[in-house]
């Protein structure tokens, strides 16, 4: 049962990644692409992390996975903000 749940979460996570990639390809400008990418991917990674944490059955591993996810969240948020800011600056210049 737990296995099934974790597989489901992982597949849903991959689906979020797919949505992010399609958004990156199809959306019309940088800011919308940024929006699609950072939200969908970080959520997708979270799903994969929770799925794998359930699968591992070990608390240490689960904590480690979740820590990496938090780092990706913080890093991704900062990077996205910096990239948007730089693009805005270019536009104004």
């Amino acid at each position, binding site marked *: 049962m737990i296995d099934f749940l974790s*597989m489901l979460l992982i597949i849903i996570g991959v689906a979020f*990644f797919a949505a992010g990639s399609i958004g990156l390809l199809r959306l019309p400008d940088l800011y919308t692409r940024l929006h699609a990418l950072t939200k969908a991917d970080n959520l997708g990674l979270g799903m994969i992390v929770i799925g794998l944490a359930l699968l591992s059955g070990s608390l240490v591993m689960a904590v480690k996975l979740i820590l990496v996810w938090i780092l990706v969240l913080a890093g991704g948020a900062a990077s996205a903000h910096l990239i948007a800011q730089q693009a805005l600056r270019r536009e104004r210049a």
Partner: protein
Amino acid sequence: MFNTQVILLIAALLLLLTMVLGLLRAMHGPSLQDRMLSVLLLGTGGVGLLMLLAFILEQPALIDVALVLALLAAMTAAALTRRKASDD
């Protein structure tokens, strides 16, 4: 009963394919920021892929690799956006 390994491997393959899709943006651009976005995608997707591989290959050390990748991907994005003190 399903095979956990096979499903994880299929998930890894699909994740890789979405990364290929995202890399098309790196090839087309048009701006440097657009390309960098696709590197961000490759970073996040790479972290996910490394975690999946850690379980498929039963190599817990790959989680450390995912950690390093997450730290350094943030640094690369930062390096792209910084300006010299002399610029305005």
